[in-house]
């Protein structure tokens, strides 16, 4: 009898038939429209950005080859380095808070998923996801303002000394922007994690209870490993949101005060369209893309199906 893997190996050795070549052509034919769009709107702009990153160009006039000067500037200019650092600080807020809170919510409502409590919780937590980012940014700008609800609350509980214009404060502006991002992304993470937790066989929790597990053990030994893929998706999406953030920062602070909340996405826009340094903006964009890829590579490795 031939075992299944042996059969697969045998199949791989078979010479290509006319039929298989034909089906490959058909496959390319079906992929072609999507690939054309992908090439036109992703691959070509990426290649153009890469090309521009070696130029000194104001976007209108004559471009001059500039070597790797733009990259040297990106990697040595203290201001640009701080801007990149700001993005990584935002990862702490955009990623950690939604994933941790999402896990907590998923664990709490696991047993009540089908009931009204579960439905209400999921709906409420997903709401920020359907609110446009611009609207969320404006709403939070009001809430963080001197007379906003945050300061009203602090004054109401006797913490008037803590009240401040959060988005205008050199120390607190970046955390405040981080809180806005965390609020926006919490719904997405919660939905992903709540959906993921329903896939975990409930008998695993029962077996663990009989094995002597307490709720904390159940979380560590069953929930976390069971949600590995979903956690990886959440972390990937939120890390990208943080590193490539633009709209929330643009609406809430425009990068200020100073450059305390400036992020690469906004700086690229500013360099390209306000300062007319298209080459430097492109170099920053390429560096940002590489940083995003480097950041999410270990997450993807962590999430892979271990055979």
């Amino acid at each position, binding site marked *: 009898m031939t075992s299944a893997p042996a059969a697969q190996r045998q199949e791989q050795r078979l010479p290509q038939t006319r039929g298989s070549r034909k089906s490959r052509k058909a496959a390319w034919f079906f992929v072609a429209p999507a690939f054309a769009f992908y090439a036109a709107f992703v691959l070509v702009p990426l290649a153009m950005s890469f090309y521009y990153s070696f130029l000194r160009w104001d976007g209108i006039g004559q471009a001059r080859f500039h070597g790797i000067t733009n990259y040297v500037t990106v990697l040595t200019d203290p201001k640009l380095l701080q801007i990149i650092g700001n993005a990584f600080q935002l990862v702490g807020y955009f990623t950690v808070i939604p994933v941790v809170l999402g896990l907590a919510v998923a664990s709490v409502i696991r047993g009540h998923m089908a009931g009204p409590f579960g439905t209400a919780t999921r709906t409420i937590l997903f709401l920020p996801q359907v609110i446009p980012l611009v609207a969320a940014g404006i709403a939070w700008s009001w809430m963080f303002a001197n007379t906003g609800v945050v300061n009203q609350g602090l004054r109401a509980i006797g913490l008037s000394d803590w009240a401040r214009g959060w988005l205008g404060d050199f120390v607190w502006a970046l955390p405040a922007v981080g809180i806005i991002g965390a609020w926006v992304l919490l719904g997405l993470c919660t939905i992903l994690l709540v959906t993921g937790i329903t896939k975990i066989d409930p*008998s695993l929790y029962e*077996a663990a*209870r*009989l094995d002597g*597990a*307490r709720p904390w053990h159940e979380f560590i*030994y069953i929930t976390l*490993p069971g949600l590995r893929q979903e956690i990886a998706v959440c972390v990937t999406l939120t890390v990208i949101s943080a590193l490539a953030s633009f709209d929330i920062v643009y609406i809430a602070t425009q990068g200020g005060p100073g450059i305390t909340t400036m992020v690469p996405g906004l700086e690229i826009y500013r360099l390209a369209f306000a300062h007319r340094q298209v080459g430097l903006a492109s170099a920053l964009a390429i560096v940002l893309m590489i940083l995003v890829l480097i950041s999410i590579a270990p997450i993807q490795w962590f999430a892979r199906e271990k055979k």
Partner: protein
Amino acid sequence: MAGLTIRSVRKNYGPVPVIKGVDLDIAHGEFVVFVGPSGCGKSTLLRMIAGLEDITEGTIAIGDRVVNDVEPRDRGVAMVFQSYALYPHMSVYDNVGFGLKLAGTPKDVRDAKIREAARVLQMEHLLDRKPAQLSGGQRQRVAIGRAIVRQPDVLLFDEPLSNLDAALRGDMRMELARLHKDLDATMIYVTHDQVEAMTLADKIVVLDGGVVQQVGTPLELYNKPANLFVAGFIGAPNMNLVAGTVDAINAGELTIALGATKVRVAIEGATSLKAGDAVTLGVRPHALTADASGPLKGIVQLIEQLGNETVVRVKLAEGEEITAVLPGQSGHAVGAPITLAFDPASAHLFGTDQLRVG
């Protein structure tokens, strides 16, 4: 190890009663099988013993300790689940040792116990594998290993063989019987498969509609079913049940009229039945023989040749259909007439209250 006492236990899901008052005594070291059709409450009762379901009313005691409000981890029970419930990201070694790890068992002691359980279940070569790399039978062994390694007072099995194919089920049945003998453990086993129940159990508890129908040894249930439900449920093929009336009463014997056909049935002791009372006659298919002088005449409807025996479906002259299991390879043909007989002592009689007579 310890015995188990269940007293007036009830379970309601909202207004719906699922377990309607169960009383049961299980001795230390006994292998007890809960059997019944789907939805009869057998798994619910098992889960109440495990502590995975709350008890609405009544008490469950393991040994001398009432465990109604005791957490599952502190009850001294272990359970083998129908779905195996193996932790997918852990190796077999870690799965088996998980409970010991949580209990803070020293690593060397833990290692020794895991390897001993693996030896008993002949799965030493599987210890480094993940559950996804195991067959159904191997997973079941791991699940059993995880249950026995902590040496619980009571081992619970919730339809553990139902996901296995017939051949593997047979092998695992024998392994479980061997394990019970080796461990001298109190085991409670839930199944809807009466073959498993008959072959494994010291004592069978037949449940239907959340009520215990009969408790007894496999042969007690087979030979003296307490009511129509047990009579129809225990034994394969099912017992033939034919409605009739009492025609005459003699010492130790009744004559039952099945339409125009009259059959004799032996009964033990006195009976309150009188001529004209409606009864149900029960005859096991294996108790029927092809005998030209027999009282049951009919036409063969269906024949199943099993090699060592032949299952014959017969339509009686009165319109009822019965099944006979005849020894060897019968030469009967579909559509041909057949006459069947049975030993009056092998027949069962049930009154209108569905309870056994005699």
